[in-house]
């Protein structure tokens, strides 16, 4: 254990790379935001490291952990910029990726499409081999044929192969043989085995997930390798951790085997941070609201839990239709993403209605007011015209916003067709985008059966704090929480995530055929494995565990998670019956329960980087600026002050500035910085 408790969270997003240094001893955080370097994201990280080191010499050497979230994986999939990938399948089964499950995701849409298979058919090869369901060998692997196939792929320019053979979850030998053949022949191929990536039954889901893994792995592998080298060069000697899509951080070495687990690495940080902040503020239910340049993301935190799904999809043909994408069957935070960000384009459709998004001007060329060649009206342009953004102080002065350009764009795209002034057009655009976001959030909450009664809205990201007041009012929420450093809040979530690791073993056994000793031994070995990983991330810290049996009645295909405190079969049977009854209303005496999978989740109890900082108040002159008031439909005077200067109760309307984010406090709302350092906005009861 070192004396210092400095940790660094680093979130590489599509537009910006965010850094957050957290000092556990003082509770202080230092934030930094720099433009992402899309071609080589690691160089942006190194630039940021250099700047942090410049500001605080010796920082790199003092850091005890660096936790990293990245959009590299998801972008590689969405932009089809992965490796030249081939798929090796059992002879007779070349088309699993293309035939999918044959079911249609929208039964009433005759013209529905499916995503193009990530590996085209001419890159899908068969090898002679066959395993049976019980793991016995039906046909041995033809090793000579496999070698010839692999060599041919190398000659065609393939650099990565997904190996997904039938029943490899039951017996991985043939897959492992293929990996060995590649190694022994010294072939320049990156190999992803389905038995490593997702050792679970069901060939389509396993093949799809493994293929995506293979597609992104060379890119991620090289990236992480360069990152580790770069970090060592910068004087950082500690481990590099990555944020997983389902929460929990893992070591880079673990991440490199299965980068597919990093697909939602960035957003999960935001959800975790929002949960921690809501919890600190006494809210067990909350809505995390993260609005950036191209999209807004919403996650429902219910009774302190973040929803995690195993039926996550990427590359959806219809962004908002389940089943229209390619499955990644690994644990992933369940959030919704709406095409509504600062760069979202505003247009008038054929019916004379204003539409905002999902198309976006992105960072390049960006909104018209950026003056970088974009001429279409965007949400940011509307915010400038309405006086919500300070043209001279956007992104800490990195860009000077051009109000004239913004007005011109709004007039041309919205005002002229509808007979609105640029100001009216801007107000209409904001009202539409806020309504879109509120509506999507409302439906998502309804679908998840969530309860908004006592929920708080946790607003972050570049645009979240600006739109939160209006969205919370639309949702009928009374409280908005805005953290210090809202613009880099996701990076804080990475720090707030305790080092955690889950180890599972599938081993179906009827409860009647096992006993306490056997179960205890199985849990003990899982526990040792999980603890070792966590101990590596948090040396010496106490570790807590959750032991879970996934169970069902013999003959069923889906399991329920049952907490196991004492591995006595009779006690487990009783817990299962209780859990089953709670979930489905019935439990049965004449059916036999069985355990399918045992899981141990080990989690460090190390004090987390607290989202609660300290409230340090600096004095500043409170200024005034005219900005739009949606309640009176007029430009009214707003108090303008920096976040750090908020002392006592601020009565809206006000605009509070943070580096990289502006907080809008609407009319009749009261804002206060609480002792923990964050801003709490209390909204009036009636609109």
């Amino acid at each position, binding site marked *: 254990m070192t004396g210092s408790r400095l940790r660094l969270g680093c979130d590489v997003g599509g537009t910006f790379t965010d850094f957050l240094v957290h000092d556990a001893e003082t509770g202080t955080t230092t934030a930094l935001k720099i433009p992402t370097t899309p071609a080589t994201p690691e160089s942006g990280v190194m630039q940021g490291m250099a700047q942090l080191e410049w500001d605080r010499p010796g920082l790199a050497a003092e850091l005890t952990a660096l936790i990293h979230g990245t959009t590299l994986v998801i972008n590689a999939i969405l932009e089809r910029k992965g490796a030249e990938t081939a798929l090796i399948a059992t002879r007779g089964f070349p088309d699993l990726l*293309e035939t999918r499950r044959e*079911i249609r995701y929208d039964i*009433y849409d005759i013209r529905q499409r499916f995503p193009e298979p990530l590996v085209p058919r001419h890159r899908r090869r068969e090898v002679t081999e066959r395993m049976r369901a019980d793991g016995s060998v039906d046909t041995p692997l033809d090793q000579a044929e496999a070698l010839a196939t692999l060599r041919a792929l190398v000659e065609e320019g393939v650099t990565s192969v997904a190996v997904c053979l039938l029943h490899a979850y039951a017996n991985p030998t043939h897959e492992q043989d293929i990996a060995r053949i590649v190694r022994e022949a010294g072939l320049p191929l990156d190999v992803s085995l389905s038995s490593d990536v997702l050792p679970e039954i069901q060939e389509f889901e396993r093949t799809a997930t493994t293929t995506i893994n293979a597609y992104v792995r060379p890119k991620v592998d090289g990236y992480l390798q360069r990152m580790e080298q770069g970090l060592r060069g910068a004087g950082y000697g500690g481990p590099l951790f990555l944020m997983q899509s389902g929460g929990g951080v893992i070591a880079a070495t673990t991440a490199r085997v299965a980068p597919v687990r990093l697909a939602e690495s960035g957003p999960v940080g935001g959800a975790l941070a929002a949960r921690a902040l809501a919890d600190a503020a006494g809210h067990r239910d909350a809505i995390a609201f993260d609005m950036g340049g191209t999209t807004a993301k919403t996650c429902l935190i219910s009774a302190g839990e973040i929803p995690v799904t195993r039926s996550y999809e990427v590359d959806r043909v219809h962004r908002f239709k389940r089943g229209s994408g390619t499955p990644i069957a690994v644990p992933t935070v369940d959030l919704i993403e709406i095409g509504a960000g600062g760069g979202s384009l505003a247009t008038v459709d054929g019916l004379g209605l204003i539409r905002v998004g999902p198309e976006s001007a992105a960072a390049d060329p960006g909104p018209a007011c950026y003056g970088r060649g974009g001429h279409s009206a965007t949400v940011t342009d509307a915010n400038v015209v309405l006086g919500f953004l300070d043209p001279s102080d956007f992104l800490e002065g990195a860009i000077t916003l051009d109000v004239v350009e913004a007005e011109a764009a709004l007039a041309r795209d919205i005002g002229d067709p509808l007979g609105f002034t640029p100001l009216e057009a801007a107000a209409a655009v904001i009202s539409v985008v806020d309504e879109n976001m509120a509506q999507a959030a409302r439906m998502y909450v309804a679908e998840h059966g969530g309860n908004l009664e006592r929920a708080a809205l946790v607003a972050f990201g570049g645009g979240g704090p600006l739109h939160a007041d209006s969205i919370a009012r639309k949702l009928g929420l009374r409280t908005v929480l805005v953290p210090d450093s809202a613009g880099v809040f996701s990076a804080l979530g990475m720090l707030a995530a305790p080092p955690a690791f889950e180890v599972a073993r599938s081993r179906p056994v009827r409860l009647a055929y096992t006993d306490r000793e056997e179960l205890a031994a199985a849990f003990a070995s899982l526990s040792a494995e999980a603890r070792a990983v966590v101990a590596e991330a948090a040396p010496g810290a106490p570790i807590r565990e959750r032991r879970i049996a996934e169970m069902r009645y013999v003959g069923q295909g889906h399991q329920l998670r049952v907490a196991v405190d004492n591995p006595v079969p009779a006690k487990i049977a009783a817990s299962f019956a209780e859990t089953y009854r709670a979930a489905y209303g019935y439990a049965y005496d004449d059916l036999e329960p069985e355990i399918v999978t045992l899981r141990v989740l080990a989690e460090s109890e190390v004090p987390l980087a607290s989202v609660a900082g300290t409230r340090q108040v600096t004095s500043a002159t409170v200024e005034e600026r005219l900005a739009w008031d949606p309640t009176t439909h007029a430009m009214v005077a707003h108090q303008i002050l920096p976040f750090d200067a908020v002392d006592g109760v601020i009565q809206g309307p006000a605009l509070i500035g943070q580096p990289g984010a502006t907080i809008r406090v609407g009319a009749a709302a009261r804002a206060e910085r609480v002792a923990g350092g964050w801003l709490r906005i209390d909204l009036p009861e009636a609109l």
Partner: protein
Amino acid sequence: MTEHIKDPADALRFQVLWSRLISVADEIATTLVKTAFSLIVRDNHDYACGLYDSRGEMLAQSTQCTPGQAGSTPTVMHDMLRIYPPETLEDGDVLICNDPWIGAGHSPDVFVATPVFHHGRLIGFTCTCAHHVDMGGRLGGTDAREVYEEGIIVPVSKLIRRGEPNDELFRLITRNVRTPDKVLGDLRAQIAANHVGADGLRRMVDEFDLDGLDALADSVCDRSEAALRKAIATLPDGRVQHEVAHEITDDDGEPITLCLALTIEGGAARLDFAGTSPQVAKPVNAVLNITRAYCVFPFIASLSPDLPMNAGAFRPVVLDVPEGTVLNPTYPAAGMYRSLLSYFTVEVIMGALHKIAPDRVMAPSGTYPLWIQKFAGRGADGREFVTHFNAQGGQGAFADRDGVTAVVFPGNIASTSVELFEHETPLLVRRRALLTDSGGPGRFRGGLGQETVLENCAAGSVRAALSGGRFHVPAPGLDGAGPGSEGAISVNGAPPFTRPDRVDLAPGDRVSLRQPGGGGFGPPVARDPERVAVDVREGYVSAVGARQDYSVVINPADGTVDQAATARLRGALTSSG
């Protein structure tokens, strides 16, 4: 929402309520899948879940469901209530029925409905229909002549009374079916799913402070009806006729014919099936509920796919199907394999629509009929098994795009996972791959069919009921396009079946199933030669097929288009034509 809504606050509230209804219906489906015992429910998703108001009006259905069952749901509750009027229902009751004429046309589709009481008042129903793995009768009666051969029929009955299981009925059912543990398990899954849905409805009524569900039902049904009428009104008014001759013959040996006169008038579609073949002594008769399902489906699917589905959506499509025909058979017509015929209802409607709105339709599909295989026997552990295997052909092409390869349509059940299947049975799947040149050639190509080979690896024989079609009538192309490939079923390379049939598979026997391809759209010579080259590279079309069907010559060396030779071939075609 496609219709015009005057008050934005109303519109918003409607959207929120609608979204919650779907979420409750989906929760029913999720519970069903999670608690079911058979693969056909938990992995193939052969089910439909619905919500009803206190009068039995259908409010909403689950996102994932199969249209045949879902299309039967608007009437099933009314039929059940005829037997058990609301005043005879009590909290804790659960109803059951698998009568083909009340339900979805064959005995395996079992409907289980739960009355939902709230503060002592009946507010509505949750209902699930699940395809059970077996309902007794002759195994996969591909040659049944009457419904009596197709398993036990449970008329509308109380399966549970005030929370107490009706043991006699449970015993009667489990004594009459194969693998009773799976059938019982799936019935329990339906009961649990309804229970979860009932809780969801009660929560919703409380949360939104609704006085029951009836007013909401009226509102959602009226909106859907109006929206579909508006969509149908975009078609030109008029009357067209179309007919499809099926490869299955009637009792006189003539092809079964589906005859349709379609009238579009003032936002309504009237479908008159006069002239359609009389019902047959074969298990392909489709009861009116099924016919209605597949008559409404094409209009929603091609005109208004986002339509909220409820009883109102069925009103603008008016059916006139003569009684005693294959599309409205009377008791005791057999109907176990009604999907062999009922899917062609969509083909005949698409054919008629093609004469009105050619850009809206799909060419005849290789996915008609449904292919579904049933196997029974004993596994290595001596236990009896009964299970299904599904894999489908290719969809027809459209006026502007290729047909989808290997997909289910118009029904909606997933293909069988090879790995799960092999866990349940001693059969081994030896092959599952697309068939080159199986998509109907056209300016836009039909979707590809596929081949599946299954081997009996058990020590004893396995009984199999093998069904599919297009054995000699392939899916025709539209507007000058070619047909998709024919389907074929054969055992050990013997001459293929001429009709769906039952067979005992000896150890080592291999069954080959070749699902047909979809019809193309537009003349093949109008297809961009570069797209043909891609098809050849990917193995969707062979080089020979490219030359013969598309008049495109591919350089064998590098797979590129031989422009000169192609121009010569296509030019010769034009000048000779």
